């Protein structure tokens, strides 16, 4: 406690505890709280359920939270909650997603559209605008999945019309992805690219399916299927090093935690931010009706930069 916030408590809600990415976020949060001298309430977990998120936020408010950090996976359904918090003058920092409606002090996120775009560019260039790509979409009801899908689709259509895309909705389930991939490979043995929207979910299953189908060839082999992933967990890096997959977009779990707490603390202290570049390689933009968004960089990780120690995937488990 103590310090500049003078004991004002910050409530944090984790969206889920069953994915590698969010687990890293969960690990980083108390770590940065200490570093930033933020007094953290016991964090809650809304288990990917917006109704739970609303309940958790109400409970934290009752318990006297002065600012709240949340990562609503359903960005429409918190509108009322945001309005209530605004009434109570409790500033909100949202992480990873931007609320569709309602007030937030700051949105801390990497641009999911940019993920899809980056993956599209990489695959498009590697495949030379021809071939067939399987895309594992997340749940259609999740905004992040949707952003990635839409950006990927429109980029492909615009820049690489020579590539055929197979969109496989998977509900973020590896079993569905594995089944879809197996079927597609049978239907189109010449599939030469895969885009997976969450490496933490699909990586192992994808490699296993390719292995059993006899289609797992290292990068460089002409029969290699180009794979771009998303998340930036250590296992993806491992696979990049081994040449099993080509690239991944590193979602900045560490920066999410760090800057979310930073802005929450700043909000309590009454600081005001303006659009423009920041001191940490990012840009704050205004995303409409006064809401600011700090768009953190999400680097594309390939064989070239996979060993960069700054990547969060290289920091955990070490």
């Amino acid at each position, binding site marked *: 406690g103590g310090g500049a916030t003078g004991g004002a408590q910050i409530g944090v809600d984790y969206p889920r505890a069953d994915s590698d990415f969010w687990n890293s976020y969960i690990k980083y949060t108390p770590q940065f709280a200490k570093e930033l001298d933020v007094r953290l309430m016991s964090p809650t*977990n809304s288990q990917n359920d917006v109704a739970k998120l609303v309940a958790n936020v109400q*409970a934290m408010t009752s318990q006297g939270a002065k600012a709240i950090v949340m990562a609503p996976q359903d960005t429409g359904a918190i509108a009322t*909650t945001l309005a209530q918090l605004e009434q109570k003058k409790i500033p909100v920092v949202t992480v990873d997603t931007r609320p569709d409606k309602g007030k937030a002090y700051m949105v801390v996120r990497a641009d999911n559209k940019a993920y899809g775009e980056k993956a599209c560019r990489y695959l498009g260039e590697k495949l030379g605008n021809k071939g067939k790509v399987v895309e594992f979409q997340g749940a259609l*009801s999740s905004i992040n999945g949707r952003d990635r899908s839409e950006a990927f689709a429109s980029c492909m259509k615009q820049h690489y019309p020579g590539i055929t895309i197979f969109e496989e909705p998977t509900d973020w389930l590896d079993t569905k992805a594995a089944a879809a991939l197996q079927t597609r490979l049978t239907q189109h043995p010449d599939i030469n690219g895969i885009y997976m929207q969450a490496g933490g979910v699909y990586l192992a299953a994808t490699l296993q399916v390719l292995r059993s189908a006899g289609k797992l060839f290292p990068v460089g082999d002409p029969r290699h299927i180009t794979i771009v992933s998303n998340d930036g967990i250590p296992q993806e890096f491992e696979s990049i090093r081994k040449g099993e997959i080509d690239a991944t977009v590193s979602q900045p779990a560490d920066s999410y935690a760090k800057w979310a707490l930073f802005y929450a603390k700043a909000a309590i202290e009454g600081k005001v931010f303006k659009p423009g570049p920041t001191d940490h390689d990012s840009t704050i933009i205004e995303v409409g009706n006064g809401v600011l968004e700090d768009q953190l960089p999400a680097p594309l990780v390939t064989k070239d930069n996979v060993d960069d120690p700054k990547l969060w995937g290289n920091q955990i488990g070490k």
Partner: protein
Amino acid sequence: MTKTLRFARFRDLALLPAIVVLMIVGALVDPVFLSADNLTNVLQQRTELSLLVLGQALVLISGKIDLSLESTIGLAPALALGLIIPASAHGLGIELPEWTAIPLCLLIGVVIGAFNGFLILKLQLSAFIVTLGMLTVLRGLQIGFTEGQNLFEVPLSFTYLGSARWFGLPASVLICLVAFVLGIVALAYFRQGRSIYAIGGNVEAARAAGIRTERVLWTVLIIASLLAALAGLLMTGRLGSVGPAQGQGMIFTVFAAAVIGGVSLDGGKGTLFGALTGVLALGLIENILTLGGVSPHWIQAIYGAIILIALMLARLTSGKAQD
């Protein structure tokens, strides 16, 4: 005589000791727990669940089952909104007048219930599998026509019931209360209500006793769907928008509440009051876990374990085998 009656009543109250224990634990965990604000929040957060439980309890007592409620709670408001908002806001582009939204929402509930009834009663398909299929279809329709988008251009009239406060309490809580009181009275003191028990207990016997079993069952299915649509309306008001996943995954909680509240999956047994205690017990458990700041990784295991323990407690205090 009073002995057995008391006993029957006691069975409905089996969860009360567990609830008392929860209240004490809650107060110990955090003084905030007992504050009016917090308890009101718990109630408000449970209104939609409790309406679904009310509907499901009716269906279960009548000896059927309706899984599709968890999709109706999403589709009914989504489709109603879709019909009034412009295509630019992910609507269907029909743009009916705004006042039709609420009647439409409820009507959609009725239509879904009637269709379920048609498949189950007329085509004599298994209620479980029909409503499981419908759960998928209805959710699929919602994702299909909204293209997986949130509908957040909700007119104020539509959000009113879910967000207003009457007499210092959330309107939705009062609505639920009224619905439960009506249900409890109807099931305890009206012939039509009692006939639901008779049908669930032995449909052949009920038919022999002159009950129009098909009509009653159909009505029950429609009421349950209607309640789900109403719950969807309240949820939309409370959350301010309709997400494509609205209600998803709720059905298990609905069953958990109804069954730990003493409603039997075999039909013919249980009361709405019991079901309501089930809802409350679950709500208190979640609230206490949140207030207690349980580790996010262990919350689910602890939650499940507490349910099992509450169940054993109810079993011990009521002394009755469960089914």
